[in-house]
Every structure is written in C-alpha cells, then in structure tokens.
C-alpha cells in the first residue's frame, strides 16, 4: 500500500475513533443552535414584568383604556391609583409596585407627551422600561384617535402607510438577500471554525511527532514531505467527515419535515430551513462550501504544520509563532459583516480573490448569487488563486518542515523560517 495512504489512514482513524470527535460532532450543532435559541429565550424571559402605579392628573388615561391595554399585553401592568404623589413616593414599594409614573395635569392631547419619568427605587435599564413605554404610547394614540374622530377603519388605513424596499437582482430572481445574509454568515462562520480548530490540530499533531521523537523514525521510512502531506490530508478528511455529518443531518431534517406543517417551538427554525432550501441552489452551495472549506484548510494547514515543526514542547512558542497565521483568519471573520453589507464592493471583490481571506469572504458572498453578485470570472480567479495558493504554501511549508522537524533547541524566528522556506535543497 502506498505510504501516504498509510499515513492518511492512521491520522484519520486515530482522530475519528476518539470520543472527543464524536462528542464535538454531536455537541457543536446542539450548542450552536442552543446558543441562538437560548439567548433569544433568555432575553425574552429575563425581562421582569413590572407593576407600575400611575397617577393620572390629566384625565386622559381612564381606567377602561388602561384595563384594555393590560389585557392585551401582560409584559407590564399599569394600575391607576388616586393617592397624593408624596405619599405614593414614600409608600409605593410597600404597596407592591415596582415604580410609578405621574401624568402631569397640564397635558394637552394636541401637544406631545414626552419625557415621562418612571420613578423606581432600583435603577432600571431603558430596555426594561420598554413594555411600559409601549403601553402608554398605545393608550396615548387611542386618546388622540378618539379626539380626532378616527375610527377603527380609518386607523387601519393609516397603518398601511409603510413602504418596504427589498433588493432583488434582475439577473437572479431566486436570490433572496435576507436568506443570503444568514446563509453567508453561517457558511463563513463554519469555515472560520473549521480553519481554526483543524489548523491547530495539524500544528499540534506535528508538535507531538516532533517532541515524542517519532518523527525521526518515520522520516527514515518516508520522506518528510510525505509525512506532512499525509497528516494534512488525514486531518482534512476528519474535518470533511465532521462537516459531512452536519450536512447530512440538516438534509435529513429537511426531508423529514418537508411538506409537514409542524407545530411547536421548532416551527420557526424548520420553516426557515425549508425556505432556505427552496430559495437556494443547494448542491451548488454545498459544492462551493466544500471547495472553499478544503481549499482554505489546505492553504493554512501546511503553514500550521511548518510552525509546529519549528517549535519545541513549549505551547507558548507555538502560540506566538502561529499568531501571524491566525491574524488573517480572524481579520476576515471580523470584516465579514462589511462584505455582507456590500457584497459587490471593492473589499468583497479583492478579499475574495486573495487566498488569505477568500475562503471566508467568498462563502459570505456566494449565497447572494452567481453570477448576480459574484461574477463568473471572479469565482474562477478566486478558485484558481486559492489552488495556486495552497500549492505554494504546501511547497514552501514542506521545506520549513523538513528542516524544522529534526531541529531541536532554540525557537527560530519567522525571518529564519522564511529563509528555510526559500533555501535551495
């Protein structure tokens, strides 16, 4: 059997068989969605329902209106009281209120009613006063409507006043920019995570071989380049397996829920997924997602391998030396928002051609549509430069690796590493 295949098989099997692989494969989607759903849930639940006493000196906020509003929305309760302001200030807590508002006597419906203050004994955030604000606004609006003689029908007519503008590409009718943004973010974040996690796995793997001194035994059987390539390909396959499992899970969920109108808490998410599947060319997306994922991985992995070969046991050395490699990855995930906001702007176009940033940028842009947003030539140049990029980094890193893997002692600087990389045999 070919020796590279043997190395790939070992790298792959030792990792896939580990419990941590299984756990991270299962746990990641759970955590990811848990985070999204959970944060929404927590924000919704954590806001305490306030009970607020109200002294209405103006006479506009009558009991009937307040009652109707309290029934329509339970996120805050307004209780009209008729106590003197001073005694309410002293006693509102013992009466069981979280705070109180006073509608001034000189309020006139034709003027505004701005800057009411909510008096509390604890400092509340603006956010927690929102439900109260919403209710008072509703009541105030209905007061105004009544005074102006606007009935329910007229009110409806008034409310239909909003004009919404949705971008739609004439070349690509299916492109939906909302879904594209979401899909772009998900694909780019996933690429980012895979690059970071599996890139450092390559580095750690090389360090392990170097520090346990097995490297010298192996390179007396195979060429150092074969060892490096086998490791990168093996770990790449692990990454592919993990992503593949996630994709399959999503496809299964899609197919199972297709056509059913499921009820319950998952409905929103599943409905969203169904919408994604109908509005996006899924095989096309998956192809490019895998291409940029693997391309980006190969581009960076060999450089991580070179760093791993250059350092010794010390994790700090590895961290300081690998930081320059992580910079462009972190940079591209941070600036990705700008790319999604303006997917045809110069940052987006150039960034998705340069292989340092292209795996993440391109994944953020492709959902917006090819050739609507990403021109075919851009895609071709980007793919070619990524392929060329990883051939170059692999060649370059291979030379650093060959020197580094058998070199012990002082940690070399990046300058020395680059010198090793360009040295003739």
């Amino acid at each position, binding site marked *: 059997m070919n020796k590279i295949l043997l190395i790939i098989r070992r790298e792959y099997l030792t990792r896939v068989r580990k419990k941590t692989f299984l756990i991270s494969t299962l746990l990641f989607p759970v955590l990811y969605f848990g985070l999204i759903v959970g944060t929404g849930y927590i924000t919704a639940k954590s806001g305490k329902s306030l009970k607020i006493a109200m002294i209405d000196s103006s006479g506009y906020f009558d009991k009937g209106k307040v009652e109707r509003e309290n029934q329509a929305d339970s996120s805050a309760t307004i209780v009209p009281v008729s106590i003197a302001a001073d005694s309410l200030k002293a006693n509102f807590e013992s009466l069981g209120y979280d705070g109180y508002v006073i509608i001034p006597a000189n309020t006139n419906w034709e003027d505004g009613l701005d800057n009411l203050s909510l008096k509390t004994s604890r400092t509340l955030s603006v956010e927690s006063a929102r439900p109260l604000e919403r209710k008072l606004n509703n009541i105030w609006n209905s007061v105004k409507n009544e005074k102006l003689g606007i009935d329910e029908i007229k009110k409806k007519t008034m409310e239909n006043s909003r004009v919404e503008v949705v971008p739609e590409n004439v070349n690509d009718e299916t492109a939906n920019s909302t879904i594209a943004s979401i899909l772009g973010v998900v694909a780019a974040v996933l690429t980012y995570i895979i690059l970071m996690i599996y890139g450092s796995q390559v580095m750690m793997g090389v360090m392990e071989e170097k520090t346990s001194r097995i490297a*010298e035994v192996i*390179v*007396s059987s*195979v060429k150092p380049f074969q060892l490096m390539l086998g490791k990168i390909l093996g770990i790449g396959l692990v990454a592919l397996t993990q992503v593949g499992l996630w994709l399959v899970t999503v496809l299964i969920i899609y197919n199972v829920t297709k056509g059913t109108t499921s009820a319950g808490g998952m409905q929103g998410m599943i409905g969203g997924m169904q919408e994604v599947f109908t509005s996006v060319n899924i095989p096309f997306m998956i192809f490019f997602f895998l291409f940029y994922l693997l391309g980006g991985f190969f581009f960076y992995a060999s450089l991580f391998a070179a760093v791993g070969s250059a350092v010794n046991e010390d994790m700090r050395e590895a961290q300081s030396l690998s930081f320059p490699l992580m910079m462009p990855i972190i940079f591209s995930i941070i600036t990705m928002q700008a790319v999604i906001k303006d997917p045809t702007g110069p940052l987006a176009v150039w960034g998705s051609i340069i292989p340092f940033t292209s795996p993440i940028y391109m994944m953020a842009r492709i959902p917006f549509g090819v050739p609507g947003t990403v021109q075919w030539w851009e895609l071709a140049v980007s793919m070619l430069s990524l392929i060329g990029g990883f051939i170059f980094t692999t060649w370059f890193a291979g030379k650093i690796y060959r020197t580094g893997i058998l070199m012990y002692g002082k940690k070399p600087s990046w300058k020395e590493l680059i010198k090793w990389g360009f040295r003739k045999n």
Partner: protein
Amino acid sequence: MALLQLNHLKKNFATQKAVDDISLNIERGSIFGLLGPNGAGKTTLIRMITGIFYPDEGEILFDGKKFDPLNDIEHIGYMPEERGLYKKMKIGEQALYLAQLKGLSKTDATLKLKTWFKKFDMESWWDKKVEDLSKGMQQKLQFVTTVLHDPKLIILDEPFSGLDPVNANLIKDEIYNLAKNGATIIFSTHRMEQVEEICDHIVLVNKGRKILDGTVKQIKNDFKENLFRISFTNEILPEHLGIFLFELVKKTGNEVIVKINPGHTNNEVIQYFLNKEREIESFNEILPSLNEIFIRQVDGTPTARQFQETN
C-alpha cells in the same frame, strides 16, 4: 564485498562542517562501531545513510549500487538515540503501522510481530498504550520495530541506554543473532566496554572527521606503548632497574611497570631479571583500553571530557 561504502561524504550546515570528508567500508554481516563524542557528526552521518539528509558531496554505495533512498530505505532499520513512539497509540497497532511504512504487508507484519513479541515476552502488550510502558519496555518495543522487516542494515544508536542488565543482554544476544543471520549492524555509542565486547570493526569520528578506523585488536596494537607489568616474589632493588633494556615507569613494592626500549624483546628483559636471580611471578603486557585511546585522540577538544565520564 562491503554492504555499505561511503566515499568522501561531506555535509555542511550553515555554521559548521558536520561531516567533513568521511570514507569507510562496512562489511556484510559485521558489527560496526561508530564512535565519537556528541556533536562529532555521527547523527548527521547516520541520517545520510538512512536517506534523511542528502550529502553535499561524495557518494554512498549500498549493496554495490548507488544508494537510492526511496527503495533502499526498506532494507534499513534505524533506531535513533532519542527514542520515539506515538504515546497514545496501541502497541500492536503502532508496530504494524511502522512495519507497513517499511513496506511489509499487514499479514507478514502481524506474523513477524507475533514471533518477536513471543521471543521478548511482550505478548500481553498488544492492546496497551505506549504511555503505559516503562522506559525499558518502550526500548524493547522500539528495537522490535527497528528489526521487524529483516533489514540488511541495522543502525542502532545507543541501544542499551535505559535498559537493565537482563534486558540489555537479551538485546545483545539478538544483535549477535541478527549478525549471524547476515544482517550488518552499525552500532553507535559512547560506551567503550560495549564496543570492545561487541564490535568487529570501529571508526572514531571527531569534529566531522574520521580519526581512527580498524578492528579493535589492530587499533589496540597500534596504540600500545610496550608497557609491561612484572611482579616478583623476592625483593626488587633500585640497582636492578638501571639498564638500557627498559625504562622504569612505576614501582610499587615488588611490582614494576616498565617500558621496553625499541630494539629489545620481552625475552631479553626476562633473561636479564633471571640473571639477577629475581623470581618472576607474572609478566603481562599492558594494552591501552579503547577509552584511553579515544581520550588521547580527541583530547584537547572540549568534547573529550564525555569519554572520561563514561569511564
């Protein structure tokens, strides 16, 4: 015919000449000692022989043909001084993997491993992990993985370090066995007593150059100084010792160490003492130990001290 022939090998690193014009022949089936202080260039030399490094100049002939690392590597087994195994990998799996990298098929490798594991009493280890083994046990495993594929050339760098005497003997016997069955062994070490015991032929390198080359016996003869230890049963007096035949080196009680002057034989010396009516109890030549020879050879260089430490 020599299995391995090195002709004027040179290898330079940025700052130093690691191997500077070394030529040597290693006979098939011999146990060859490669000696030298740390930094002498032994490891670099071995790495060129194992195809890890390419020589800058010179050529390597393996089995009569120009050394072709890609194919010949399968006939070489190398155990580096710094042992290396995957700590988290199971022992059987690891040994199989290393054997397959050397070109053995899985079935062959399994079969051979079973035999070796039995021989070394390691059968119960198959599913253990390397990190669970003691250092000596790891050493045995490493030795097995080095010789498993029946290499023509076996290179062992300090094979006995970290082994207890029982296991050291076990390995030593296997080394003899392998040599008897036709394998050629390069044995790299600092431990002179092992070299004297095991090696047929030795080479000493220092600072990238070969400074000694020959059989153990021949080298000892080359460096002998005609020193003899003579002890007497009756008293020996100063006036007995002033003679042109020899010079006195040392006298303790009735025992003297003398250096016989060139042009004179042992018999003349014995005859002289008999004429003086001295009764000789013993008469021995003092041959230098390899250790002494090597210290003398590399003396004056800062690395010479290492040899004294292993004394």
